């Protein structure tokens, strides 16, 4: 009834044996792909590490902090008392630059701002999502150095984000603050290195100052 009258008979070519290894390789490749995607989620490409926007004024932290030795708090004056470290007003710049390099072309936007009263539009480098509430004073006053989050600002011509600033990154420190604690007097000293084992120092400081960073959601998300 179903005799095939034609002489042709369909068969798969012999090379189709590759299907089996191909399936196996495909399955392995799929797993690898998943692993790669997950790894990518942790990588600097997925976070903003390396972000270094061009600022309206070519302000050099390397010069001001690294060479001239200015303290962070001279400009970021609110860092010890409020949530925000504060970007300095133009007046702060003019404290010096009304005298020093008062005619520099690089400082035109600063002088314009000073004249018009409109602030310089600095670009925020270390920008957290709006649903994250970070308090500078809570960290600085417990002995977490600026360098822990911002890196060696004193060596940067252009400020660059060096840490992922991701939730996991925050959590690691909240779980093990001893890795980053330092004596309060060295908080703004970016090149400070502990004279002893950081962990030992950190544990001692943690004990002394009763530092137990909360890991509740509401610590950062409100």
């Amino acid at each position, binding site marked *: 009834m*179903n005799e*095939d009258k034609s002489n042709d*008979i369909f*068969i*798969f*070519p*012999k090379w*189709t*044996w590759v*299907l*089996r290894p191909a*399936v196996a390789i495909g399955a392995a490749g799929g797993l690898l792909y998943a692993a790669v995607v997950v790894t990518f989620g942790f990588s600097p490409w997925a976070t903003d590490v390396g972000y270094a926007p061009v600022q309206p004024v070519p302000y050099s932290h390397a010069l001001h902090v690294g060479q001239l030795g200015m303290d962070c708090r001279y400009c970021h004056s609110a860092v010890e008392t409020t949530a925000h470290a504060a970007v300095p007003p133009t007046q702060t710049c003019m404290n010096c630059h009304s005298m020093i390099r008062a005619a520099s072309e690089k400082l035109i936007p600063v002088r314009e701002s000073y004249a018009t009263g409109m602030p310089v539009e600095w670009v925020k480098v270390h920008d957290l999502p709006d649903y994250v509430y970070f308090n500078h004073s809570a960290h600085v006053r417990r002995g977490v150095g600026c360098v822990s989050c911002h890196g060696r600002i004193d060596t940067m011509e252009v400020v660059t984000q060096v840490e992922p600033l991701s939730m996991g990154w925050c959590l690691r420190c909240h779980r093990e603050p001893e890795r980053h604690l330092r004596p309060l007097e060295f908080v703004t000293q970016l090149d400070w290195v502990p004279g002893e084992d950081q962990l030992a120092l950190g544990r001692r400081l943690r004990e002394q100052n009763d530092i137990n960073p909360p890991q509740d959601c509401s610590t950062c998300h409100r």
Partner: protein
Amino acid sequence: MSERTAPAAGEPGALYGYLVEFDKVDELLVGARAVRDAGYTRWDAHTPFVIHGLDAAMGVKKTVLPYLVFGAGLTGTVGGIALQWWTNAVDYPYLISGKPLFSLPANIPVAFETTILFAALTALVAMLALNGLPRLYHPLFTNRAFKRATDDRFFISIEAADPLFDRSATRELLESLSGRTVEVIEEA
């Protein structure tokens, strides 16, 4: 065996083996017993559906599949529990409704599902792997009569690679069992 000349096994035109057709289930079973008793090892029966008693008639050994599936299921259970314990009680503990971080009752459903999932995937994949499938090309597919193996006919095939295979003796055996002419299967 000695008369086998080029092409070598696997090459086009090489002899794969013999195929013989049966009309009825009981003829096939009788045939299968005879081939088994003759001591052949590299041979097979082809039927459109599972035939009860054919495994015994052919002397097919019991598959290891259940052990693989059991192992996979156990892996699923342990993996499922471990995943829940690690994620919710160790790696990131959080307080939920005043409940303990790890308690078996809440973790049973997921552990159960991972058990079934692992076991079921293994059942299919291992079945195919043990059967050497997928294998889209096979010398038997070059035979027109063999197409009815998925419809209403029953076949026995003996491979030329079988140590006992003999062009004339094997042919005689098969023809005596089925009363039909043996089909010669060659590689395409």
